[in-house]
């Protein structure tokens, strides 16, 4: 399992860096949603399904919805 | 019934804040009345609680009958009950002031929310000073932190929204380290209850000295950002300047202080004074506090906006409180706890005075305030009392706490103690330097033909200011009761 964990964590860090570096804000938000989903999977691995389901609903769901709503009102590019 | 008081104060304020939108649907005009009533009730309750705690000792309250270390424990000790009285009392006066003032400063649609936020923030502040559970502390800190920017941005103009956003980002940056610190403490001790974790820290600190140190650093940075400790204060001037005056009074007078109380509790309860004295962080805290005292005063010197001037002086005064705490002698901690009360009174009063001036003159530029002392004598006399108390003129309350912090510096001893004393004296002079021009301009400047008229401001604006000014004078002449409480609380913190 350690290898899977390490792989997930590495992709997680890559996602975080990509979300931060991307110039396209919409892209950044989508990458952030992927980051949240990965985080939810990691939490499932760590034996807290409670946190995982909440993160999947909130981090990947609501935060993304609200961010995209904000982008639709403001600008898409930096 | 008295046993239930600690939780009752918090819950009734939170309940009140949730009730306000419903009340607003039924009858909008009822919102100020009901929130004033709830706040007054909370104030009465906290005074009863303080009496009870002084007479018979701490109240330990277990939420949901779950005994610690598993359940959440609320402990009403001297420091907590004392802070609860300050918080509810000043919030009550601010609400009285807000009755008329926010009609000028806040849009009609947002007025109900102001009361919701004030009730919520005071409930959370009381919860924060009473709780003995680390994670509960974090939740309360977050509620206060979220209400703060909201109280700034509620003015809904470009400056306020920008200041509120900056405030929010800084404060969110502060909450990360706090949570990290709690996680580290939980990692090494396995407890979240501060009493139990504190006992455990002493056992494990030799095993994990670096983790304990890291947690301490995280706590200082996190709470320091929120309390505007000097190099981390960058959000403060804009936030306090662009907020509506009642919000500034509440944030400067209370919110900054409860974070300091939170930090005090965490540091002193978890580590104890013996451990703290051996780590280098107290030295860093002292340096930051001294820098804040000097730099805050210097930056206040050339401010043209009266609210900005008062805001920068806050940075210096928060430095005093931190200095008193980090010297960690009996006198200095007493002085710091007393200064929390005194500065809360003075700073809220001065922001409310600024509010009256802005209400009447519609300007906050110091240069345009020539002769306001003749137009609004009561307001400006109160402002002068506040300024003199801040400088530390004897017979006013600011003097007592500065005196005690200075005594603490002497007790600390050595060359360093003398240097801290020197810093306090220099900063008092600087305080005089930036307040006096305002007062001189207000009372002697302007056109001399202007007749003296009495303040035409509504009574609800003047009354809270006069009460606070009276408090400043009374506590300056008869400081015995709060002094005794502060001394006992300090002794308890230092574990003597």
């Amino acid at each position, binding site marked *: 399992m350690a290898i899977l964990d390490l792989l997930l964590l590495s992709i997680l860090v890559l996602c975080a860096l990509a979300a931060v570096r991307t110039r396209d804000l919409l892209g950044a938000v989508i990458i952030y949603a992927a980051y949240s989903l990965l985080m939810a999977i990691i939490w499932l691995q760590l034996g807290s399904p409670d946190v*995982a*389901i909440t993160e999947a*609903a909130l981090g990947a769901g609501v935060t993304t919805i609200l961010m995209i709503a904000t982008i639709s009102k403001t600008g898409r590019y930096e | 019934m008295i046993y239930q008081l600690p939780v009752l104060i918090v*819950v009734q304020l939170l309940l009140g804040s949730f009730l306000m939108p*419903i009340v607003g*649907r039924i009858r909008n005009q009822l919102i100020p009345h009901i929130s004033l009533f709830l706040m007054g009730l909370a104030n009465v309750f906290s005074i009863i609680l303080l009496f009870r705690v002084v007479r018979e000792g701490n109240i330990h309250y277990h939420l*949901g009958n779950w005994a610690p270390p598993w359940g959440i424990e609320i402990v009403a000790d001297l420091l907590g009950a004392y802070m609860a009285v300050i918080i509810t009392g000043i919030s009550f006066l601010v609400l009285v002031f807000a009755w008329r003032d926010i009609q000028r400063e806040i849009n009609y649609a947002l007025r109900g929310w102001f009361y919701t936020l004030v009730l919520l923030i005071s409930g959370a502040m009381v919860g924060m000073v009473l709780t003995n559970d680390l994670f509960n502390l974090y939740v309360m800190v977050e509620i206060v932190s979220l209400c703060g920017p909201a109280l700034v941005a509620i003015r809904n103009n470009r400056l306020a929204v920008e200041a509120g956003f900056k405030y929010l980002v800084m404060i969110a940056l502060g909450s990360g380290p706090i949570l990290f610190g709690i996680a580290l403490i939980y990692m090494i001790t396995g407890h979240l209850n501060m009493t139990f974790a504190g006992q455990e820290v002493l056992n494990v600190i030799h095993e994990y000295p670096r983790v304990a140190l890291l947690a301490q650093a995280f706590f200082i940075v996190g709470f320091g950002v929120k309390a505007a400790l000097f190099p981390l204060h960058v959000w403060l001037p804009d936030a306090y300047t662009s907020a509506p005056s009642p919000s500034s009074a509440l944030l400067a007078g209370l919110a900054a202080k409860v974070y300091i109380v939170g930090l005090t509790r965490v540091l002193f309860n978890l580590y104890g004074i013996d451990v703290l004295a051996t780590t280098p962080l107290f030295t860093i805290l002292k340096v930051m506090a001294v820098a804040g005292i000097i730099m805050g005063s210097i930056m206040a010197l050339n401010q043209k906006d009266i609210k900005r001037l008062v805001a920068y002086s806050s940075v210096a005064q928060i430095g005093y409180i931190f200095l008193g705490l980090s010297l960690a002698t009996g006198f200095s901690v007493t002085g710091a706890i007393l200064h929390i009360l005194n500065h809360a009174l003075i700073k809220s009063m001065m922001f409310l005075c600024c509010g009256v001036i802005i209400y009447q003159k519609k300007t906050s530029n110091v240069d345009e305030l020539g002769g306001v002392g003749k137009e609004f004598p009561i307001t400006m006399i109160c402002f002068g009392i506040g300024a003199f108390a801040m400088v530390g003129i004897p017979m006013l309350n600011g003097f007592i706490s500065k005196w005690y912090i200075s005594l603490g510096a002497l007790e600390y001893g050595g060359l360093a103690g003398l240097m801290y004393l020197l810093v306090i004296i220099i900063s008092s002079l600087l305080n005089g330097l930036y307040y006096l021009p305002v007062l001189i301009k207000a009372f002697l400047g302007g056109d001399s033909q202007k007749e003296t008229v009495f303040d035409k401001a509504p009574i609800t604006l003047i009354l809270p200011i006069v009460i606070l000014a009276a408090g400043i004078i009374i506590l300056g002449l008869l400081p015995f009761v709060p002094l005794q409480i502060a001394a006992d609380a300090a002794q308890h913190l230092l574990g003597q």
Partner: protein
Amino acid sequence: MRMQEILILKIVVRFVIPFIQVYGFYVITAGHLSPGGGFAGGTIVAASMVLYALTFDASQGLEKLSHERASLFESLGAIWYVALGFLGILVGGNFLTNGQIGIPLGTPGYLISGGLIPLLSFGIGIKVAVTVVSLYYSLVEED
């Protein structure tokens, strides 16, 4: 082509929304038995309503849940929680006392168990669902 004109999307969304909502309510009511609870379930219910507003029109969604009604429900959810907490004080215990207040504790593992906890998650679920939806509306609203 604007999103509001896609027929397939509209029909599929109409079909999907009830399932999402049922799942949301399941997560709320089974919060004390399985992962989830008031917060996650409330969010899932809210997501279904946001989906409705996205596919059809925000104004159509606003008709169903105006800001006043939303703030009413938000307050009611929070007050429900606090009132249940007060029950503990009324029976002589502490705030949020669970066992003694007369709600049956039931057998662990079955739906009716846990005393206060399902009731509390119900209040949280309502509050969260309404709050998230009204947040969405207040963000996309033209002013």
